Structures are given as C-alpha cells and as structure tokens.
C-alpha cells in the first residue's frame, strides 16, 4: 500500500475514535466554558483541560523518542503576527459561543441529527476558505504583515526557547511537557472536580492521546523520502473547508489527511449516536437562531484562519507542540468565549 493510502485510512480511524468518544462524553469546549463560567459546573471544561494536558505530555514524549519532527508543523512556523493570532482566537471563541459549539462539536452534533450544525459547518468552511485563499485572503495577508515577530529560537516554542538557552533535548522537552501537562491535569482533577466523573476522565485522556497519534501518522508514516505529506494532527477549520471543496472538486484534487479525519468523525459520531439511540432530527426554532448559527460559523471560519487553528487545532494539537503562537491563540479563544458569556457584548442566552 502507498504511504498516502495508509495515512488516509489512519486519519479516518483517528476520526472514527474521536467522533465516537466525543459523542459519548459530549466533548465540547464552548459548552464546557458556558457551564463553568455561567453555571459554575466546570466538569466538561475540565475534561477539555485534561485532554490538553494529555496531548502535551504524550506529544513531547513521542517527539523525544523521535517518532516525528514537530518543527515541521504549521504551529511552529518561524514568523507569526503577535496580535493577529490572538485576535483570530477571540473571533473564534466568540463565534463558537454564538454557534453553540466549535467546528468539531458541530460535526458530532450533525451526526446526532442536529441539522442546525449543517449550516454552521457550511458557513465555517466557506468563510475559512474565503479568509485563507478567497476574497478575504489579501486582507489576511496584509494585516498579518503588521506586528510580525520572528523568535530567534531553535523553534518558536517553549522547548525551543530552552534548547536555545543551552538545555539538552530530553530536559528541554520533558520539563515543559510534564509541567504543562501535569499542571492542566491537576487543575482539572483537583479544583474543577473532574475526578468524580470517571467517564469524562477516560474520554479526556483518550482524546488527548489521539493528538500524538495524528502526529505520528503524518510525521512518521508520512515522512516518505520522495513524497512527504504535511505534518499535522487533529484540526477542524481548514479541513472542514477542504471537505466541502473535496465534495465539489474530487476529480481534480487528491484526498488529504484532514478530510479523512472529518469523514471519520462524522462516521464515528453517527455510529455512537445510533447505538446509544441519541439520534434525533432537530432544526431551527426561529430566524434569530439561524442568524446566530450563520454569524457564529462565519466568525469561527475567519477567526480560525487568522489564528491558524480552532479550539482543537490550536487548543490540543498546537499546544501539544508547546508553540508560543498556540498559547496566544488559546488565550484569544478563552477571551472570546468570556466576552460572549460576560462582558458588554455578551450573547443573550449564553449563560
């Protein structure tokens, strides 16, 4: 089998697992933050934090054992704008609260029979491509030129900073990898009370482990001498756009890892939803809801393009590389969500 075929099937498999687990545990950052900050029920948000921590520690361990080179990923590109990346995060965070779920959550909800998510996904995919390669792309490139920073480290990440400070590779990866990972896990299990919800603990750890699995698939099995594939892991903004494009142009373009993951998530979540009899068709109650789905999806698409990733893409995959840009993007996403829950521009029923 060609290595590209192996990668597509592996991506589909990772998507299947993600979809099934996320459907069963209702894995969702926006819902979690709404319950945490609005209703003082932090468990679902804690499961997301645990997934983040697991992804960081496991990815750094895998990179240390040479399973892949994280420096080849887009999160560690040498130049990024210090304000466009967090601004994209804020737009994404606000958009995911407006749309009641981020891109990956919308895929799972669609498989549950929630037809509102279809509109969110279409708006997200189209607006992401408008910002990446379409009518908004010149504006994106123009503003990204302002405030561009090039960190003169080995890679623009926490481990890169330590390597540049003269640390050896093992401690430079393990120290921040364990500190961030264990720190997030401790917060989730301790003060946020996740330890009382074993199903959420298991789900969070499993989803966190799918991130290094994605890195190893594209970065190890994809590292063909003659035809290397881009090093990537779980992410949902560009891949949802790619999936829409693939539906329309499949005779002229080749299938990519991200599109295979999106297909896997839909299939996995649909299977889980049918088995657990959660499947139920739902639609919009009123035009106002529809407007929120449209604007939320659009904000997520544009914001995700500016921030180079979504709650999963930057929050799990990006953070797992310890990239400075990912930390900025996540701060932006949390700030955008906070604006939607509290603050002067809060959404009416976000709390």
């Amino acid at each position, binding site marked *: 089998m060609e290595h590209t075929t192996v990668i597509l099937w592996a991506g589909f498999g990772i998507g299947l697992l993600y979809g099934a687990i996320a459907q069963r545990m209702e894995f969702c950052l926006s819902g979690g933050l709404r319950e945490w900050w609005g209703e003082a029920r932090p468990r679902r948000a804690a499961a997301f934090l645990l997934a983040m921590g697991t992804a960081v520690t496991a990815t750094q361990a895998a990179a240390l054992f040479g399973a892949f080179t994280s420096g080849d990923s*887009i999160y560690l590109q040498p130049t990024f704008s210090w304000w466009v990346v967090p601004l994209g995060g804020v737009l994404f965070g606000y958009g995911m609260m407006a749309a009641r779920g981020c891109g990956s959550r919308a895929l799972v909800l669609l498989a549950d029979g929630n037809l509102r998510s279809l509109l969110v996904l279409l708006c997200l995919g189209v607006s992401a491509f408008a910002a990446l*390669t379409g009518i908004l792309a010149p504006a994106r490139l123009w503003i990204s030129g302002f405030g561009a920073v090039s960190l003169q480290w080995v890679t623009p990440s926490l481990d890169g900073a330590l390597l540049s400070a003269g640390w050896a590779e093992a401690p430079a990866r393990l120290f921040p990898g364990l500190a961030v990972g264990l720190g997030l896990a401790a917060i989730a299990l301790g003060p946020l009370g996740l330890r009382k919800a074993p199903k959420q603990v298991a789900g969070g750890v499993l989803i966190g482990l799918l991130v290094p699995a994605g890195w190893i698939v594209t970065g190890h099995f994809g590292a063909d001498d003659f035809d290397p594939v881009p090093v990537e892991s779980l992410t949902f903004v560009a891949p949802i756009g790619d999936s829409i494009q693939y539906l329309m142009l499949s005779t002229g*373009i080749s299938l990519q890892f991200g599109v295979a993951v999106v297909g896997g998530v839909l299939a996995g979540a649909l299977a889980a939803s049918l088995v657990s009899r959660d499947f139920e068709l739902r639609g919009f109650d009123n035009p106002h809801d529809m407007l929120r789905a449209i604007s939320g999806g659009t904000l997520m698409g544009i914001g995700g393009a500016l921030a180079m990733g979504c709650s999963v893409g930057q929050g799990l995959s990006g953070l797992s590389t310890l990239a400075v840009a990912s930390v900025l993007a996540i701060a932006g996403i949390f700030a955008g969500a906070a604006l939607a829950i509290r603050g002067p521009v809060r959404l009416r029923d976000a709390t």
Partner: protein
Amino acid sequence: MTHPYTTRLSAPPSGAPHPLRRVIGLFAAILFLAAAAADARWERIPEAVALLDGAEPRAGALELDLPTVTQNGSSVPLTVRFPESRGENETVEALYIFAPGNPSPEVAEFSLTPALGNGELSTRIRLNQSQPVVALARTRSGDWLAGTREVRVTVSGCITANQDNDANAMQPRARASQRVRTGQLVDVRTLIRHPMETGLRERDDGTVVPERIIQSFEARRNGETILSARFHRAVSANPYLLFHVDPRTAGGTLELTWTEDTGESASATVEVPSAP
C-alpha cells in the same frame, strides 16, 4: 388564426434551412472554435511555436495529471501519460513542458529512449499564477502530440517556512520498485536536495538571491543514456522525477547524475530488477 411566433418558427416553404438551425449551427461553430483555441495554447508560446516549426500536433493526445486547484504553487505535482504505442516508432522520444503564465514559460525538457517503455513521467513544478500547463511530445516517427490542463493557483493557506538549507543541498536519493509484475514497467523515483533558486527571490534586506538550479539529469545504463532531462527554474525545489523502465530490456544498474548550473554534480545508482 396563426400566432405570429408560430408562423416564424414553422419551416419556410422554399426548402431553405430553418433559421433556428442556422443559429444552432453558428453556436456549434463558435463552441468548436473556442474549444480548439483553448486546446491550441501552444500557439501563443513563442518557444513552442519555434519547436513545432510548422508541424500540427495531435491535441489531447497527451494526458496531463495536475490538481484542478492548488494552494501551493511552489510545488504542483505533474504526471504526463503518453498514448498507448503500437510499436517502437510510436513511442515518445522528446517531451517539453511549458507554463506560459510563469516569468519564463519553459519548465523542463526530456529525451526518452525505448528502454523507458513509453511509461508515464512525474515531477513537481512551480506555477506562479493560475494558468494552463502545456506539454508537447515528439514520437520516434516525428509526429507531435500535445496536452493542456488548466490549474488554478490560490494564495497559500499557511505560510510555509522558507528555510535556506543549503547545507544539505546536492544530496541525491533514488529508489526503484523491487516487485516485477509480468508485462508491467518498474517505477524509479529520484530526488535531489536542492533549493532551485530562481534568481528572482529577494532576501529580507532587499538583495536578490542569485540563481542556482539543477540544470540537467541523466540516467545511464551500461554507459548508455536512457533518459536525460533539462530542468529550468520552474521545476520545484528538491527536483523530483519519477520515470519508468522496461524490466525486460533495461533491468540492471542505473547510474544517475544531476548537474548544477555551477558545473557541480552529484550521482547515485539504483538497481532495477530484470524480468525475463
């Protein structure tokens, strides 16, 4: 009473062609001419016209495999397939690739021998805007074949690092498939680490990076050249070439040589399995 429109649409008595038929015919002629013009892109490439020297190529005879849309114009995968040949005279001996929308239209030229079994060629090319890619090929009997494919190039979704890894330049690698199936060609993949500097790129301080490219590639078997290629600056960094070898006639060791425009060269060997 007849309606005026029905009157006009009914057939005229004189036996002259129906006016509608004339309109349809005109449309068909326009469509045909438009299609022919779209396929005859080489007519607008001076280098291709000079090459053809009045010969009329068989349009659509070459099959070009390129993505319809690409976000990465710096590395666009291209495969050229030749029509099935009925005898050695119909095999392709020369192939020319053009990208008329680039600063210079020439991309690459190949001279092929029957040892390659008329098998497809793949490489990766640079396209700096949306444009048709044109291929012209000459068979051993002197016939010209042509193929065109439109590619849309969008700006890059992610800004990829432009690392100058000159340190690793000139490292070649090659691999031949080791499984031989009856009646099938063996594929040989070759690649050399090289920046393929176009001489058009500017550094951050505004100075121009001088041109530095791999200019030619040659595959020899028992001292005899079975494939030679001339690369221009529109061949992507780390020039990649996949070609096929007929294991019945050309199995054994291939010596591969890449030569830079500076005159420096690198070589590698690859073992092609033989078939009875």
